[in-house]
């Protein structure tokens, strides 16, 4: 079963006067149960809009949005949700313990369940010493920690995290990944957007790319990585089109589909030292994929060239 399903979802914000700004255009999105889904997109691509629609913070969309197989709309479905908004803000005058109890009760927890739940998140996010501190005194990173604590507090089945690593130092980024992995072990589905693609690579098994309100593609991250070319390192007589590495060794790079033909075409006496799959950095893939669709965020040199051509024309 899918935890989240967007079917042909379109949404427009109201602009000035009668103008409408189309933020999502016929989006189809599927987040399978139990997976960790990385939702990628440039600024303004439609990630936060999709998440807000899912959380019921925006309304007036066309198409279907389903949570746990049911159309969103009934607020009771949100009992099973945990949400960390982008750059979260909280009430200044409540302390950590009060705030968690408040949000936990709203999610349907009983007073008896609160102490154990507090202890769990205090331990996971080192908030024990801060439990009596009011949130007005929290730094950005501390707010982010509290934000994740309140999202996982009631052990939700789906964790929706909008840029969860924003404002965190490397140590806390690593801890967040550990906590998210633990939540997944517990059985929760993770759905999060991030600009730090290395983090998505570390955590996710599914991905989706959205750009200008359109989902360009989605699927298993392993399939994407499987599309990476192979690199053959050999010694002795070299076939055509290889790169000399030194010490008589050479390197040939070719797609997976050519594997058998390339190996069969090796000259007599050539020795295969290593055959390995090249690593595709998700960041490179993402940048190339978006640039292939439109020119946003293109390299500075290319942008200057385009500007000059436009000036000449």
């Amino acid at each position: 079963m899918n935890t989240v399903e967007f079917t042909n979802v379109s949404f427009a914000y109201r602009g000035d006067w009668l103008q409408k700004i189309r933020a999502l255009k016929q989006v189809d999105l599927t987040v399978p149960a139990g997976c960790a889904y990385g939702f990628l997109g440039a600024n303004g691509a439609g990630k936060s809009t999709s998440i807000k629609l899912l959380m019921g913070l925006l309304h007036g969309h066309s198409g279907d949005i389903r949570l746990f197989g049911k159309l969103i709309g009934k607020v009771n479905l949100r009992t099973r949700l945990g949400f960390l908004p982008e750059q979260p803000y909280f009430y200044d005058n409540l302390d950590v313990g009060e705030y968690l109890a408040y949000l936990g009760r709203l999610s349907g927890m009983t007073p008896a369940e609160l102490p154990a739940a507090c202890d769990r998140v205090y331990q996971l996010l080192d908030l024990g010493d801060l439990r009596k501190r009011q949130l007005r005194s929290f730094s950005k990173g501390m707010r982010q920690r509290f934000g994740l604590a309140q999202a996982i507090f009631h052990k939700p089945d789906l964790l929706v995290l909008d840029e969860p690593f924003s404002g965190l130092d490397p140590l806390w980024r690593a801890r967040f990944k550990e906590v998210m992995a633990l939540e997944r072990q517990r059985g929760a589905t993770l759905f999060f957007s991030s600009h730090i693609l290395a983090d998505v690579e570390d955590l996710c098994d599914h991905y989706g790319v959205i750009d200008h309100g359109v989902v360009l593609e989605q699927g298993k991250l392993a399939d994407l990585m499987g599309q990476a070319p192979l690199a053959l390192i050999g010694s002795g007589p070299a076939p055509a089109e290889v790169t000399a590495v030194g010490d008589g060794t050479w390197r040939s790079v070719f797609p997976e589909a050519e594997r058998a033909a390339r190996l069969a075409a090796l000259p007599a006496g050539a020795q295969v030292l290593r055959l390995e799959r090249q690593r595709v950095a998700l960041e490179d893939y993402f940048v190339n994929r978006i640039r292939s669709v439109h020119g946003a965020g293109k390299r500075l040199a290319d942008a200057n060239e385009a500007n000059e051509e436009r000036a000449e024309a």
Partner: protein
Amino acid sequence: MSTVTIIAGATFREAVRSRAFLGLLGLFAAGTLASRIVGWVSSTDGNIVTTDLVLSLQSVVGVLVAVATGTALVQTEIQNKTLYTVLSRPVERWQFVVGKFLGLAAGLAAGQGAMLIIGLIYLWATGADVHRWLVLAGLMTTVEVLVMAAVSLCWTALTSPLLAAALGLATYALGHAVAGLPPLLHHLKGAQQVIAGSLASLVPNLGMFTYRNQAAYALPLPWDDLAIRLVYGALWIALLVGITISVIRRKQL
């Protein structure tokens, strides 16, 4: 405990700990002490003047707190996105608005209660006559403050917090101005009278809750008159909170 009660409880704690709330309570205490000076220099009964001033101060400070906190209640939550973590839970928007208003109302009522107690102790200590009608005047002021909180809440759902505060104070001035309108309406005729009367009914008549001056002279307020005023206040609060809910339900967050 219901969702509304949980939200109201957290809002109450947040409200009574806010610096604006505590600061204005301090201002009331300082103003109460200063009221004695006016009593001394007054040509009439100094104790009556002091009593009237203390009760009026309770109203002014209460309305300022109501406007300041009421206008910050929803719009600031939207701007700061603090409501994201609440509305992403099984909470209907009407529950959010009603819970927030009830929490604020409880905070304002607690503040009014504290000011009334401070004021009565001060009046007793300075030798003024302390009687039950002063408590009733405090109750009427509390209803006025709650109506103003609902006015501010409604304005803030429609516009920015700053403009909502200005419109809230303007509504306060108009609300007291319409109290003096009925005698003037007799000078108008036909359509003019209908139009003026209709426009006046668009703002709550805050004169309905002004019983301070009579209370200072220990003039009684009939119970049926009191009941009408309380129902009038409750209806205005229900109407304004209802408008706020209908606006917030349509709002894109």
